[in-house]
């Protein structure tokens, strides 16, 4: 060994080594979030992120009623835990507010996740996977939920959120027109063929002018057609798209036929509310809202109407698209057990879930609650109709969920553009499908 000269820099190495090690440990702990675990509050506090009013964009006068009831119930069982939420956040501002809270590290322990933003929040890892909590909780049975509603909270096989409230889209029928034309209400398992023939039957002029003023359908888009014909356009990650499969072609042909059935007239929502259109797809929440006594006078009042299942395409089924409001747990919460209890109370408790039919317009994702006779009675009482839960059961049973990858809305725009231009052009359909498939895929690739 070389005998080294004593030098200032040769001072004992270990203090410096240990100081470095301690600093590294501190940094790791800080990044790991040890500060969240250090609670200086005596009382436990659970925070909930929620927006004011109904998810279904209908003012109903009970902005926080169900949540308040759930909190009251929760406090009865856990008086030592305080539950707070920030009130007054509009639904339109909610996702931005939540993003800011997440970036500031002050995101609530539990928060509602609007369907459109589920993809974003799951992608950034803001949602805590709940599988372990579900597995360890003997009281919680995922089977109680409608499978598609439960699937809404899943990503890559992980349950990231639990559905709180949902609504399928259904076909609204102007019964007055059908009665006038002597057409019976379609069967629950009706097809595009039935749909198209009714549309053709009703499209004509009802007065002396000879101008066509009664139409078959409004607002039936490619999304409805693709769902009805069993098309899964995007893969789960939203990195590729298959636009060339035959069902896509069938759906586009059908849309073309529908357009032609409307005599080329661009039928709008206003025409339906004016009582001049036989069919329009709408969310079930809208049915509930406008059938209720309070709002029934405002719209759709000049005619008799009801909702039925969506028509089935040749390669598909009577499929409804499901929109769901979920509740998720903050991935950085330090109070998983308490948050899970409250989450469970909100989504899984029958009494709380029943309140959805009182104070909101959606339906409960718990099949036992939604399909109960009590619920049917309540809907009948409030809507004043002979509501049949069978329709709802069918719609929920065959519902599908929209892709939720981040950027889906933009991708949808691309497909809309494709469908529109195909409908407008007279070129070979299959050729166009191949060309647009390339365009959409290169868009998806460029986006990633």
């Amino acid at each position, binding site marked *: *060994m*070389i005998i*080294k*000269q004593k*030098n200032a*820099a*040769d001072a004992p*190495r270990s203090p*410096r*080594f240990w*100081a*470095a*090690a301690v*600093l*590294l440990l*501190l*940094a790791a702990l*800080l*990044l790991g979030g040890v*500060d969240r675990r250090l609670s200086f509050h005596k009382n436990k506090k659970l925070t909930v992120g929620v927006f004011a009013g109904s998810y279904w964009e209908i003012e109903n006068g009970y902005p926080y009623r169900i949540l308040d009831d759930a909190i009251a119930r929760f406090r009865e069982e856990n008086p030592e835990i305080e539950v707070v939420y920030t009130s007054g956040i509009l639904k339109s501002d909610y*996702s*931005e507010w*939540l*993003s*800011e809270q*997440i*970036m*500031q*590290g002050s995101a609530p322990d539990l928060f509602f996740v609007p369907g459109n*933003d589920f993809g*974003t*929040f799951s*992608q*950034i*890892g*803001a949602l805590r996977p709940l599988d372990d909590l579900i597995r360890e909780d003997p009281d919680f049975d995922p089977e109680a939920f409608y499978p598609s509603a439960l699937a809404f909270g899943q990503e890559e096989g992980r349950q990231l959120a639990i559905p709180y409230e949902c609504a399928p889209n259904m076909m609204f029928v102007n019964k007055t027109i059908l009665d006038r034309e002597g057409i019976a209400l379609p069967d629950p398992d009706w097809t595009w063929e039935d749909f198209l023939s009714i549309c053709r039957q009703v499209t004509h002029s009802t007065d002396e002018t000879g101008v066509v003023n009664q139409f078959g359908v409004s607002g039936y888009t490619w999304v409805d057609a693709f769902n009805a014909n069993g098309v899964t356009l995007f893969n789960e990650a939203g990195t590729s798209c298959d636009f060339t499969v035959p069902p896509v072609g069938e759906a586009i042909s059908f849309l073309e036929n529908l357009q032609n059935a409307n005599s080329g007239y661009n039928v709008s929502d206003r025409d339906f509310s004016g009582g001049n259109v036989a069919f329009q797809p709408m969310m079930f929440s809208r049915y509930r809202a406008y059938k209720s006594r309070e709002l029934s006078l405002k719209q759709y009042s000049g005619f008799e109407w009801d909702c039925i299942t969506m028509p089935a395409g040749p390669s598909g089924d009577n499929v409804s698209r499901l929109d769901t409001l979920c509740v998720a747990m903050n991935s950085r919460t330090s109070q998983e057990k308490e948050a899970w209890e409250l989450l469970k109370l909100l989504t899984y408790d029958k009494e709380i879930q029943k309140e959805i039919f009182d104070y909101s317009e959606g339906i409960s994702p718990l099949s036992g609650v939604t399909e109960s006779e009590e619920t049917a009675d309540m809907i009948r009482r409030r809507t004043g109709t002979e509501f049949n839960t069978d329709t709802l059961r069918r719609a929920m049973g065959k519902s599908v969920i929209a892709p939720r990858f*981040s*950027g889906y809305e933009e991708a949808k725009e691309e497909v809309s553009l494709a469908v529109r231009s195909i409908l407008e052009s007279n070129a070979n359909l299959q050729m166009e499908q191949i060309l647009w498939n390339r365009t959409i895929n290169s868009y998806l690739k460029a986006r990633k």
Partner: protein
Amino acid sequence: MADWSLELYREKEGEDVNSISQMPEIILNEMKLLNLVIFLFITVITVHAQRGYIHDGSALRFLVESGTIPILFWKLPATVVMLCAAFMLLLSIPCNNHPELVIKLLAEYGIALWISALTGFGYTGAVLLLLADAMRYRIDWKKRIWYIALICILYLVMNGNILQDFFHTIPLSQMWMYYRQDARNSLLGILNMLGLINTLVFILYMVVLTITQTSEKERILRLNSQLQAANRKLEEYAEEQVRMTETRERNRLAREIHDTLGHSLTGIITGIEACIMLMDIAPEATKEQLRAIAEVARGGITDVRHSVNALRPDALENLELHRALEKLVEESERSTGVKVDFTFPEDLQMLDQDEEDVLYRIVQESITNAIRHGHASQIRIEITRSGNDLKIHIEDNGVGCDEIHSGFGLHHMQERIDMLKGSLSYSGSNGFVIDAVVPIRVASEEEDGGNERR
């Protein structure tokens, strides 16, 4: 381990330190400071941008675009500062060998990677600090190339995009999207400039380090030649010393002979000449004269004996035999750490000088052999007297030897003993054992007896 040892290039204290030798250390410190400034710059701008997104209400858009949650704004500077401090501490720790250096470099790389990940891989020049640190050690070029290759690979890995995906890092360019195009370009420009300055400082450091190391080599060469010159001088001086000693001894011998034998012989010659003249005239007086001459001759003999005594070497010259032996044993024990068990009869004062010499030499030679060849740690010496024989038994616990090559030492011993008509036997099967028997003359003989046999 020896070839793994490392040493930092450093000026020794007390040497005249020219200013350039301290330059690498100074530049390295400046470089550390610069890296700290760069990381803090990135951190401050990033935190400001993060706050800006929240303030402007574009947090959702930012999250959608970045696809991950950024680190909490106050945690970012806190962790970056802590990691930078840990990084600088590690850099300042010197290493003693190559494994330590490799581990240290990897640890430093880990921290640099961590800081870079936190700061969106906007700056990766901290790796140059590792290279600069590693170059401070005295490493031969072959190994040095390996170090450079290792660090370069790590540098490339850090600049690749693979790690960015692995760490889910928000790239700096995206983080700074908050700023308007022109402001963002200026900020990225400043960052690039700082990075470039870091590279330039690194190049300067390497140049200065090379110059310093070259000048150090020259200094070592200079010192080496000085050392050789001094060595040569020392050799000359030693030769001179030998010559002088010889001359002095010669002079002493000449003086002794002149003072003793010369004096006596002169007296004897003068007396004998007087006797020749007196013999016929006065036989009685001649007889008387011859007696006087005999007396002078006897005195001369005594003088000669004294002189020879004075010329005897080492311990025996001044000490009695048993004291000399004790001293020999004591010195052997002290200087070699060997344990010597020594028994010696009290009645040995009557030995003649030649006998004492032989005895002394046998013991001395045996101890030397036991230590040098046998690597013994214990020696037992037993001298006993039975009748007119002196028995010497010496054994050690050393390695012994299967086949004894009678070297100069044993040969010499044999010769000495032969002169006294004694016998010598030895064996190396179990340690090394020497048995010698020396017949001694009983102390009746006086004066000249011993000398005759010498």
